[in-house]
């Protein structure tokens, strides 16, 4: 389900609106993921506090959204653009790729909550496709 020009335009337009709150979105989404899908906590056993709003969650939410911002700027070549991030996830972090879908769902929930007027179904579809392609690019080096 590759990204059409319309999808890319929709993602970029939405990103322009939401990027000032990127850090908050990242922290919220990560906190929700850890709460709603407790199995994801297995990847963060080395943190002292996994609750929503905690220091480690806020910090890492920022890191993740920084990478999403980067992905938006590289939307025309996600596989190429995310190659080193894919390498990191494949060989060092070894996150099961099924979890990318879970995180994406939570980012979408938070976008809907914080920007209700900017997230009609067609935009939702393009964003859903974007995250799916992002996840695919992130999985590229796994095997």
């Amino acid at each position, binding site marked *: 389900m590759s990204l059409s020009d319309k999808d890319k335009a929709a993602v970029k337009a939405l990103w322009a609106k939401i990027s000032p709150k990127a850090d908050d979105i990242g922290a919220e989404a990560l906190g929700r993921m850890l709460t*709603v899908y407790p199995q994801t906590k297995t990847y963060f056993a080395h943190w002292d506090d996994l609750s929503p709003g905690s220091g480690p969650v806020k910090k890492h939410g920022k890191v993740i959204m920084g990478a999403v911002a980067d992905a938006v700027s590289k939307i025309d070549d996600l596989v190429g653009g995310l190659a080193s991030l894919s390498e990191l996830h494949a060989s060092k972090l070894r996150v099961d790729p099924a979890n990318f879908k879970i995180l994406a769902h939570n980012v979408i929930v938070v976008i809907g909550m914080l920007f*209700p007027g900017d997230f*009609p179904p067609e935009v939702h579809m393009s964003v859903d496709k974007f995250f799916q392609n992002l996840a695919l690019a992130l999985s590229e080096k796994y095997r």
Partner: protein
Amino acid sequence: MVEWSDSERNTIASVWGKINVDEIGPQTLARVLIVYPWTQRYFGSFGNLSSASAILGNPKVANHGKTVLNALDKAVKNLDGIKGTYSELSQLHCDKLNVDPDNFRLLADCLTIVVATAFGSAFNPAVQATWQKFLSVVVAALSSRYF
């Protein structure tokens, strides 16, 4: 057997109590049909589904959205017997409607997003966790008679 804490029971009743079925139902089904267009395969008799605006304005979609969401009421009122509650509905979806059960998960996810959009920050992580637990039990029940 699914176990519900008192807090979870209260949360589910509270969220359900605030959901306007006549609004949220149509919005959710329309969103599913737009975001996951292959789901349109089940609605050949619904008329014009050719664009997002057609889907959003389609009265059959709206009516069916209300039907689907109203059916959740049975589960809310019977948290300790959801599987039994949906036994017949599960058979119907499998044998007669031939719906791929993966679609139940898509609908549940879209419903969560629509509810989050309507509730804003009141839909905090703990509420989301309980709500999604509830929906995953519903989805499992609807899938339970598929063989």
